[in-house]
C-alpha cells in the first residue's frame, strides 16, 4: 500500500520530468530545424564523416550552426553547475556563479585592454578576460578573508566588487564612442560562432573544472547542511567553501571570457531544477543539465528571432523564456526551498545609541547640500553662486540636488525594508523589475510614439513602474508574501521586463542611445516638480519604515516565531513590499535604476553601527541622501561640461569604503 506522501512525491517528480522533457524536445527540434534549413539532412552524415567543407551552405553548418549548438550545451552546463554550487554553499537563491566578481572583472579587463593595451588584447582576449576574472576573485576572497569565510561577508564583498567593476566599465563605454557598440555587444553576450575556436577552448576547461566539482560533491552537500554539521563530519569548512566557490567561479569566467556575459542562466537553472524536482537531494547534476537545455533552447530561439529582429543577447532571451516559467512555478508548486545553512548570527555588539552618528550625518548632509548648491564649474572656471546668478542656480541646480537627495533616501530605505522583510542580503530594489518596468515605459515612448507628442518622461516611466509594481503585489498576495516565493516572482518579472527592454532597444537605433545615460542614473534633466515629488515619497517611506520597525525587527526571527509573537505576517509584508516598491518606483522614474544605493547602503548602515530598526531606517535615509547629493555634485563638475553619472560615482565612492569596512569588521 502506498502512502499519500509517496504518491505526491512521485507525481511531483513525474511532472518535473515532463516539463524538462518538453524543454529538451523543443531545444532539439529547433536545433535540427536550423541545420536542415541550411543543409538537407541527407548531406549531414557525409559532412560529418569527411569533415571537408566545400559549398558555402556546408561552411554555414560546419563553422556556424554546429559549433553554436555545442557551445550552448557546454556553456549552459557550466553555468547551471556553477549556479547550483553557489546557491547550495551560500544558501541564497539569488546567488549565481558570477557573484564573486568574475564576470564583471573579466568584462572590465577586456574593455580596458581594448582601449589602453590593444597589443595585449590581440595576443589573446580570453587570457586577458581570465586574468581580470582571477584578479576580481582574489580581491573578493581577500576582503572576505577571516573567520570561516562567512557567506554573508562573501556575498557582500562579491556584490561590491561587481558593482565597482560595472561602474568602471560603464564609464569606459560612455567615454569611448567608437567602442560603444562592440563593448555593449560583448556585455550582452552572444553564442554566435564562426569556427570551432570557441568550442575547442571551452570544452576542456569546463570538463576539468566540472570533474573537480563533482569530486567535491559530498563535502558541498555537507556544507549546505551548515558549517557545524560539516565540521562534525570532518570537512574543513572554510577551505572547502573557498575551493568549491573558486571552481564554480572559474566556470563562469571561462564562459564569460569566450562569449561575453551570459546572464540569468546561472541563476535560473538551479531555481528551475529546484522547482522541477523539489524532492531530489542531489542538486548539481539536475541543475547543470537544466542549464544546458535552457541555454540551447534560448540560443536557438535567439537564432530564429535574430532573422527578424537582429542580434539579441542570449541572456535576455533566456530571461524572456524562464521569467514567466519561474513565476508560474513559484505560484503553483510547493515551497521550492533551499537548505538554509546559516541563520543570521545575532550580533555580539550591543545596540548602542546612535544619536551622535545620526547627528553627524545630518550635519554632513547639510554641508554637502550647501556645497552642492553654491560651488560649481562654469564658463569662467570654478565659481561660487552670488546673489546675481542665484536665479540660474535655483532653476537648474536646485532640482538636481533635491532629486538626488530624495532618490538616494528612497532607494536606501526601500533596499533596507526589502532586505529585512525578505530576509535576503541580496534583495535590492531593482530586483523586483520595477526599474526595468520604468525603463520599458520610457523606451516605448521614445522609440514608438510619434515625434509630435513629446510625452513627459516621467509620465511614461511612471506608467511602466506602476504596472510592474501592481503585478508584483498581486502575484505575491496569493502567497501571503512568503519571502522565497516573492523573491522568485521578483526575479522572474525582473528578467522578463529586462528582456523586453533589450528587445525594444535593439529595434530603436540611435534613439536608444539617449536612454543610456538614464540607465546609469542621471539627474541632468530633472525638473523641480519631480524633485519635490520624490522627496515627499522618501518622507512617507521613512515614516512607514519607522512605524513598522517592530515588525521588521521580529520578522528577522523567522516566520514561525514572528507569527507566534503576534506579528500579522501578511499585512506587515504587504505594507513593507508596497512601501519599498513605491519608493523604488519614485526614485527610478526620476533618476533611473541605480543598483548600488539600494543594495549597499543598508549594509553600510549596519556596518557603521546602526542596530535598531528605527534608527537604521533613518540612517539609511541620511546615508542615501548624502551619498547621492555628493556624487551628483562631483558628477556635475568632474569633467565639466560633460556629466558623469552620479549612480556610477556613488559606486565609485561607496565601493572602496564598504570593502574597507567589511574587511575591518571581519578582522575584528
Amino acid at each position, binding site marked *: 500500500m502506498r502512502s499519500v506522501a509517496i504518491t505526491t512525491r512521485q507525481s511531483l517528480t513525474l511532472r518535473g520530468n515532463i516539463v524538462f522533457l518538453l524543454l529538451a524536445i523543443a531545444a532539439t527540434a529547433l536545433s535540427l530545424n536550423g541545420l536542415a534549413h541550411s543543409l538537407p539532412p541527407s548531406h549531414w552524415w557525409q559532412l560529418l564523416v569527411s569533415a571537408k567543407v566545400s559549398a558555402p551552405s556546408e561552411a*554555414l553548418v560546419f563553422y556556424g550552426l554546429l559549433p553554436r549548438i555545442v557551445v550552448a550545451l557546454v556553456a549552459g552546463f557550466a553555468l547551471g553547475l556553477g549556479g547550483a554550487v553557489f546557491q547550495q554553499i551560500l544558501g541564497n537563491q539569488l546567488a549565481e556563479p558570477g557573484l564573486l566578481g568574475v564576470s564583471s572583472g573579466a568584462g572590465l579587463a577586456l574593455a580596458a585592454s*581594448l582601449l589602453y593595451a590593444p597589443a595585449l588584447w590581440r595576443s589573446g582576449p580570453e587570457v586577458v578576460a581570465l586574468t581580470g576574472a582571477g584578479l576580481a576573485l582574489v580581491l573578493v576572497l581577500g576582503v572576505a578573508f577571516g573567520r570561516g569565510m562567512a557567506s554573508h561577508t562573501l556575498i557582500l564583498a562579491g556584490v561590491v566588487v561587481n558593482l565597482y567593476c560595472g561602474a568602471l566599465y560603464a564609464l569606459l563605454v560612455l567615454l569611448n564612442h*567608437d567602442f560603444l557598440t562592440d563593448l555593449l555587444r560583448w556585455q550582452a553576450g*552572444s553564442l554566435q560562432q564562426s569556427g570551432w575556436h570557441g568550442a575547442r577552448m571551452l570544452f576542456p576547461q569546463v570538463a576539468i573544472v566540472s570533474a573537480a566539482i563533482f569530486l567535491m560533491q559530498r563535502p558541498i552537500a555537507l556544507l549546505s547542511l551548515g558549517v557545524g554539521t560539516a565540521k562534525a563530519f570532518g570537512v574543513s569548512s572554510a577551505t572547502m567553501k573557498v575551493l568549491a566557490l573558486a571552481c564554480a567561479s572559474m566556470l563562469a569566467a571561462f564562459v564569460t571570457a569566450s562569449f561575453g556575459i551570459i546572464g540569468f542562466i546561472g541563476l535560473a537553472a538551479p531555481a528551475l531544477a529546484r522547482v522541477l524536482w523539489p524532492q531530489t537531494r542531489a542538486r548539481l547534476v539536475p541543475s547543470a543539465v537544466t542549464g544546458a537545455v535552457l541555454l540551447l533552447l534560448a540560443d536557438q530561439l535567439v537564432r530564429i528571432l535574430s532573422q527578424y529582429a537582429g542580434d539579441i543577447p542570449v541572456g535576455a532571451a533566456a530571461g524572456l523564456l524562464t521569467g514567466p516559467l519561474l513565476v508560474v512555478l513559484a505560484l503553483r508548486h510547493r515551497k521550492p526551498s533551499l537548505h538554509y545553512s546559516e541563520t543570521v548570527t545575532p550580533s555580539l555588539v550591543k545596540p548602542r545609541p546612535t544619536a551622535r552618528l545620526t547627528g553627524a550625518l545630518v550635519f554632513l548632509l547639510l554641508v554637502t547640500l550647501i556645497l552642492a548648491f553654491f560651488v560649481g564649474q562654469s564658463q569662467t572656471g570654478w565659481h561660487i553662486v552670488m546673489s546675481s546668478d542665484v536665479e540660474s542656480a535655483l532653476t537648474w541646480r536646485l532640482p538636481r540636488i533635491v532629486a538626488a537627495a530624495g532618490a538616494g533616501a528612497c532607494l536606501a530605505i526601500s533596499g533596507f525594508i526589502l532586505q529585512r522583510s525578505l530576509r535576503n542580503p541580496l534583495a535590492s530594489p531593482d530586483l523586483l523589475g520595477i526599474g526595468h518596468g520604468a525603463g520599458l515605459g520610457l523606451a516605448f515612448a521614445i522609440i514608438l510614439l510619434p515625434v509630435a507628442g513629446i510625452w513627459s*518622461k516621467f509620465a511614461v516611466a511612471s506608467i511602466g513602474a506602476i504596472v510592474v509594481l501592481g503585478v508584483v503585489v498581486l502575484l505575491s498576495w496569493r502567497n501571503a508574501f512568503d519571502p522565497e516565493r516573492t523573491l522568485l516572482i521578483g526575479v522572474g518579472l525582473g528578467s522578463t521586463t529586462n528582456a523586453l527592454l533589450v528587445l525594444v532597444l535593439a529595434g530603436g537605433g540611435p534613439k536608444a542611445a539617449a536612454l*543610456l545615460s538614464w540607465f546609469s542614473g542621471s539627474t541632468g534633466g530633472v525638473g523641480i516638480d519631480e524633485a519635490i515629488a520624490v522627496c515627499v515619497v522618501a518622507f512617507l517611506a521613512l515614516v512607514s519604515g519607522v512605524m513598522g520597525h517592530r515588525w521588521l525587527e521580529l520578522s528577522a526571527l523567522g516566520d514561525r516565531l514572528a507569527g507566534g509573537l503576534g506579528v500579522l505576517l501578511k499585512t506587515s509584508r504587504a505594507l513593507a513590499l508596497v512601501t519599498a516598491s513605491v519608493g523604488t518606483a519614485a526614485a527610478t522614474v526620476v533618476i533611473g535604476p541605480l543598483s548600488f544605493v539600494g543594495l549597499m547602503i543598508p549594509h553600510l548602515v549596519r556596518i557603521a553601527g546602526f542596530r535598531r530598526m528605527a534608527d537604521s531606517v533613518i540612517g539609511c535615509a541620511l546615508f542615501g541622501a548624502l551619498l547621492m547629493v555628493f556624487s551628483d555634485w562631483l558628477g556635475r563638475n568632474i569633467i565639466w561640461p560633460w556629466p558623469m553619472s552620479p549612480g556610477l560615482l556613488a559606486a565609485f565612492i561607496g565601493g572602496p569604503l564598504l570593502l574597507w569596512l567589511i574587511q575591518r569588521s571581519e578582522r575584528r
Partner: protein
Amino acid sequence: MTDAIFPGGSPPGKRLHSRRHFLALSLFSIAGMHSNAFASAGSARIVAIDWSAAESLLALGVVPAAVSDTGYFRQRMPLPLPDDVRDVGPFWEINRELLADIAPDLILINSSSLIMTPDIAKIARVEIVPEKAVSGDRYDLTIDILRHAGGAAGLEPSRMDVVAAQGLERISTLRARLPVSTRRICVLLPDQTGRGVVIYGKGSLPGAVLQRLGLENAWEGPVNAAGIFQAGFDALFDIGEAIFVLIDIPALRHQTTKALETSALWQSLPSVRQGRTRWIEQFYPFGGCVSALHLAEAITAALEGAGR
C-alpha cells in the same frame, strides 16, 4: 591573408583623409559664394545639439555657437568645426546650466534628446530636427534637414537650394564615374570580436546613397527603425553575389582585421573568397547632406579602386 582584407593593396588612410578636406573645402566654397549673407546671419546664435543639423548649418556657412560633443564631432565628421564652437556635453544629457549661460536664440535638437532634457525650452526657442521625409527617402531627409536648419537660421531658401543642388550634381558626377560591372553592394560594419556585422539596409543613409549612385543594395532583409540590422555572418550567406563595402574605424582596425582573418565562417563567404571586399573610411550614419556626400565619394573611390 592581408589581400583578402585589403584587396586594393594598401589599407585606406591618407588618401581618404585628403579627400575629406577637399570635400569640406568644396562645400565651404559653395557657401562662400554668398559670403555677404553669411555675415548677416551671424547675428542669430544657434546651438545645434543634433549633428545633422550642425553639419547642415556649417555647409550653409553658419557657425553654431555650440554643438553637442564637439570632441567626437571633430574626430568623426567629414568637415572641420571652428575652434570657438562650444561643447554643451553629450546629446543624451546636455549641460543645462551651460546652455543657459550661453543664452542662444535657438536650439536645434532631435526628439529623443529633448525627452531627456525637456525644460531647455525655458532657455530658448527649441526646434525639432526633421526625422522623416515626406517621401520616406533618407536622402530627401538630408535635404529637409538642410532646409529646416537654414530656415531656422533665417537664411533665404535660395541658399539652401543652391547647396542641395550642388550636392545632387556632385552625386550624378560620381554616378557617371562608377564602373558598370558590379552593381550589387552590401555596406557593412564588422565588429571587432568577429561575431557579426552591422548591415545598412533600406532607410539608412548608406542605403539611400547607394540608390542615388544607381547601385543596388544587396541587403533586402529586415532592418530596424534606423534602417540598420545587426546580425551574425550567417545572415550574409543568403544575399548572393555582392561586393562587401566594409567600414573602417581607425581605432578598431587591428582588432577587426584580426577577427575577420581568423573567422572560418567569414572566410568561407563567397564574396570574401573571391576577394570582393573594399574598405571605406568611417562616416556618420545619422548625418545630413555633408555626410551623405562624403559617403558617396568614399563608396565611389572604393569601387573605382577595383580597377574596372
